[in-house]
């Protein structure tokens, strides 16, 4: 067996080992590569940035489950920091049954870093089952769906919720989801109510969301850890997203090198077998 054939038939466990090493190294030796902002992230950032301080609140729907935490939690942290930094009021809710703890953890952690008060600068509404029904219902009156916040306080007793009835009083909704919840916001908040919606989704889902972005159904889009890293760059608060991008660079390069080796070996092996180099395969 020539070396080319050996390379082609390499035990895939060597590849696994290489990936394992590549992902771990940047944890100990950070590279600190810079991140450049892309238009969908910039437009979501601008949409948040244009919100009036201490006025109509941003509705942040933290719809992810534990499985997509590493990609989406950096986003919620970056967006919450952006809002708290600018004194923009935030109302947090979740549509995922397993998202309650995660949403609460994100908003409380971010709030700890800033001088903000619960009920005045931010509120947490908790979870309600039934995705489309919740979104549609909030378009009529938020109180129909969430009569009280997650801790049992009626919404009217929260200063920042006074005067907030439905989507007319919410300039922007952002959904961070690793499943179809973000799409549901497009279908049931943008389509019937023309509510401005932004989304943060996993990198793999981002492809599906380009049509919505292009059709103006979404105001902006964060895709995966990179989207989070870009947003962290814009709010000048590098964190998990930015650090993760170093590991990303190494692994992406590794995969490309592997593909290059594979193709070189493939053509060496072909040449050895069919000297004419022709033939349609």
């Amino acid at each position: 067996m020539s070396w080319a054939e050996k390379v082609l038939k390499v035990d895939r466990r060597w590849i696994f080992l290489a990936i394992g090493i590549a992902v771990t190294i940047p944890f100990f030796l950070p590279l600190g590569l810079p991140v450049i902002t892309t238009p969908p992230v910039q437009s979501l950032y601008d949409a948040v940035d244009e919100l009036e301080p201490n006025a109509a609140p941003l509705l942040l729907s933290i719809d992810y489950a534990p499985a997509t935490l590493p990609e989406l939690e950096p986003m919620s942290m970056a967006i919450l920091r952006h809002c708290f930094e600018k004194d923009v009021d935030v109302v947090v809710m979740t549509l995922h049954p397993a998202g309650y703890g995660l949403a609460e953890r994100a908003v409380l952690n971010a709030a700890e870093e800033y001088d903000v008060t619960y009920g005045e600068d931010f509120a947490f509404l908790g979870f309600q089952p039934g995705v489309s029904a919740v979104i549609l219902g909030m378009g009529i009156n938020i109180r129909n769906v969430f009569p009280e916040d997650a801790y049992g306080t009626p919404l009217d007793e929260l200063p920042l919720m006074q005067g907030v009835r439905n989507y007319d009083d919410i300039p922007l909704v952002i959904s961070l989801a690793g499943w179809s919840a973000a799409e549901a916001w497009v279908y049931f908040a943008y389509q019937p109510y023309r509510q401005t919606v932004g989304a943060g989704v996993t990198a793999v889902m981002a492809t599906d969301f380009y049509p919505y972005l292009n059709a103006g159904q979404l105001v902006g889009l964060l895709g995966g850890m990179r989207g989070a890293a870009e947003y962290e760059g814009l709010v000048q608060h590098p964190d998990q997203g930015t650090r993760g991008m170093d590991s990303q660079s190494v692994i992406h390069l590794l995969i490309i090198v592997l593909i290059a080796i594979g193709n070189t070996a493939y053509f060496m092996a072909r040449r050895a077998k069919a000297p004419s180099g022709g033939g349609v395969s």
Partner: protein
Amino acid sequence: MTFIWTTIGALLTLSIYSFLYKDNPFYKFAEHLVVGVSAGYYLVIYYFNFIHPNVFSPVFLLRMGGEPIGFGSFLWWMALIPGLLGILLYARFFPKFAWVGRWALGVYVGGYAGLGISPVMQARVIEQLRANAVSVAGVEDPFAAMTNLALGVVIFAAMTYLLIVKRNLGTKNLLAKIGVLLVSAVMGYAGWWVLSLISSTGVVSLTNILLVVGLLGTLSYFFFSMKHKGLLGGLARVGIAFLMVGFGASFGYTVMSRVSLLIGRVSFLLHDWLHLID
């Protein structure tokens, strides 16, 4: 206490990773464990989050969402009917009556089939068509748009010609074929770039023509009523080319999110469990 639980989580994590080496007792244990845990989890969650508040409590305790409801009232019936439909599913346990389970299935499948049709038409067909049309035509200078539309048609015709008449891109050699494709891609891209220097409107409409060509090609590929020969064959091949670019691009795009998950787990092991990094 937290450390014990974290250690359990970490050991289970390592058990799953051991699968990468080969199937082994640790993986088998973890796999059977997670099946058991999730079965118990869903059993409890489905009962307490759906059945209890929406069926059991209103029907038997006459309370719904904390409010009392009357026996035989409208709300009571509205809780009883889905409850009965759910129970009909269990008719399967008695083969003689298994067929009544289909009623529940009929309600569920029929309801969602009806529910799905119109939004799909709206969001996936009409809205996409509209977006495509508007983004192609939505440039400020109609003259430039027309010129570019014509230009797009020419490029498209050339591509189709290459792909149909010169089916194999004029050569049999695979490397040469790839070469031709690469050179034309580079040329196309260069042309696009040169145009971008001359007129920004032109670029917008030219790149948008890609949307039309791609959509036309892909839809042709999914045309089942005719053999893929002649013009339709060419269009379908253009569609395949677009599909391939799309698949490659989204594959590459996805790598990042998968690596993100791995980073999350590695950070759990190194940071949350072993405290090796901060």
